[in-house]
């Protein structure tokens, strides 16, 4: 202990301290979420994997420089080799190129569907929350009726009516999916409008613009991000399942579902024709799911420490 001198017992002017200063730097919600996501090795790994997959879907089909569309009667059903990394299919086409081509179609379909789902859901949910009252009531009943049916049933029925094509598939898969988003958005906006901190912001004279930017968007955005993260894999899934049942894209187009469906036919003799597309599908879906999990943990304000 240093020596006690009279000098040290001098009163200090009390205004020397900024009393209300908050000594810890504040971390913004998004900054914190990103920091936590970065600290999650699984999520970062899956993010890297996804980026790799996306790059492969862009350049993958052309790496081998093989024609993967035209039938080649000579090189049918060849196992994986130096020429055909994943083997060739029953019509002699390079499976490696086809898998990445299929992944491209599957991912594009999933992304388009997700975009439609989010846009329609936001508009519908926003209108419900904005108008409220009888409009809300009627729109809610419509939602309830649509959601009270297994969605795959509706998708199947719609596919039955429409011709098989990518557009029809997108429409059929989106026809019910937006309901969940609409419901979540409505719930979130309603809750926010009632919430005390928005009321407090209003009382402090915050402009509606500020409330929308500072409170509404950040709070709904996290829901939307999670929605995207969980929707994309589920669309990839549904596409594959529908094509498997023969109700998705027709067997001449290339998508992961079609490849799996074709692979099943030759499963007993040439299992690799099923294995590679199925593996690609699983890896892509797994990466999306893992990233989604990481995002959920990162965005959950209750988990902030």
């Amino acid at each position, binding site marked *: *202990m*240093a020596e*006690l*001198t*009279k*000098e*040290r*017992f*001098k*009163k*200090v002017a*009390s205004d020397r*301290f900024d*009393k*209300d200063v*908050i*000594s*810890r730097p504040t971390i913004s919600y998004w900054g914190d979420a990103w920091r936590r996501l970065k600290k999650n090795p699984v999520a970062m790994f899956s993010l890297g994997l996804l980026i790799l997959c996306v790059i492969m879907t862009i350049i993958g089909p052309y790496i081998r420089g093989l024609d993967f569309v035209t039938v080649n009667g000579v090189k049918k059903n060849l196992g994986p080799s130096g020429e055909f990394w994943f083997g060739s299919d029953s019509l002699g086409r390079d499976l490696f190129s086809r898998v990445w081509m299929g992944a491209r179609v599957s991912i594009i379909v999933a992304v388009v569907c997700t975009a439609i789902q989010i846009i329609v859901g936001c508009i519908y949910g926003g209108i419900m929350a904005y108008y409220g009252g009888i409009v809300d009531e009627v729109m809610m009943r419509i939602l309830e009726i649509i959601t009270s049916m297994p969605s795959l049933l509706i998708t199947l029925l719609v596919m039955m009516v429409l011709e098989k094509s990518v557009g029809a598939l997108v429409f059929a898969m989106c026809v019910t999916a937006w309901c969940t988003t609409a419901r979540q958005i409505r719930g979130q906006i309603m809750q926010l409008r009632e919430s005390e901190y928005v009321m407090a912001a209003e009382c402090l004279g915050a402009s509606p613009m500020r409330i929308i930017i500072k409170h509404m968007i950040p709070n709904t955005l996290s829901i939307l991000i999670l929605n995207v993260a969980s929707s994309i894999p589920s669309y990839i899934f549904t596409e594959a399942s529908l094509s498997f049942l023969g109700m998705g894209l027709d067997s001449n187009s290339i998508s992961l579902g079609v490849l799996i469906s074709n692979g099943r036919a030759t499963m007993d003799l040439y299992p690799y024709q099923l294995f590679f597309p199925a593996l690609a599908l699983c890896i892509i879906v797994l990466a999306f799911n893992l990233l989604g999990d990481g995002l959920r943990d990162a965005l959950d304000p209750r988990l902030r*420490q």
Partner: protein
Amino acid sequence: MSKLLEVKDLRVSYHTYAGEVQSVRGVSFDLEEGEAIAIVGESGCGKSVTAKTIMGLIKEPGKIKEGSEIIYRGQDILKLSKKEMGQYRGKEAAIIFQDALAALNPTMRVGKQIMENILQHNKSMSKSEAFEEAVKMLEMVGIPDARQRAKQYPHEFSGGMRQRAMIAIAFACQPKLLIADEPTTALDVTIQAQIMRLIKDLQKKLNTSVILITHDLGVVANVAKRIVVMYSGKIVESGNSEDIFYHPKHPYTCALLNAVPRLDLENKQVLASIEGTPPDLLDPPKGCPFCTRCRYCMKICCEELPEMTQFGDGHQAACWLHHPMAADCERPKEMEVSK
């Protein structure tokens, strides 16, 4: 009277990503049998953590530091086995939480929640006997139609009744030690007084020792014999309630006392408040934790921790103003040395 509980140099930290938050930084006090003491302090000063530690309820990421001791009847409860802990909790010590709605299981009938405690510590008792006992407990805490009420769920109770039910659970096995963690904070003022009176009556009747934890000095006055004032994880002053109320020896206590609304003051007088916020416990200040908010802060206060100064009769305070060298420094008028 003999010592029931001795807390020695208790240190509890929470480990978060930002670092170690030192919630409790070396707290020592003791409690005699049948005695009621109060721990007073503002939010975040570590009083609830202290209470939970005494009940052995600290969980990850919280950690009790080496060297801390909580001696209950000669036994360090921090070293109890799981089984011994089970016998200690409920039977020897019980706790009442602030928010009774959150502290009662929403899907279990109130009577059953009381019976649970009774059956746990009286293995030979039958269910129907335990139910009768639970009804008796509810009657004791002043719940009318106790028999019907015992079959209801917590959400069917009013706020005050829920807190009474909590008290019934706590007293079900006649514990020697009751910890009341802000038992009245969530209640209306009128109900607050009833609940405090109930706790006081039961304490007298059953000769229970009580640790009352609160941020409201007004609540403490007629319940606790002794008061411990905590600030940012440390005890800054402790002593008899009379000493604390009439002869405070720490600027923080003075400021707290001035912040209690009083009827005998003139209407025009503005209620005093303490400016500023408590220090960040992630990086506790080197000197006196109160120095940044203290109106009488001296240079040394920011540099070194003050020692406890004894004033007799167990009254002690940690403040540099009591150092002989500070004899002629400005101090709160309550603390003026009367010669």
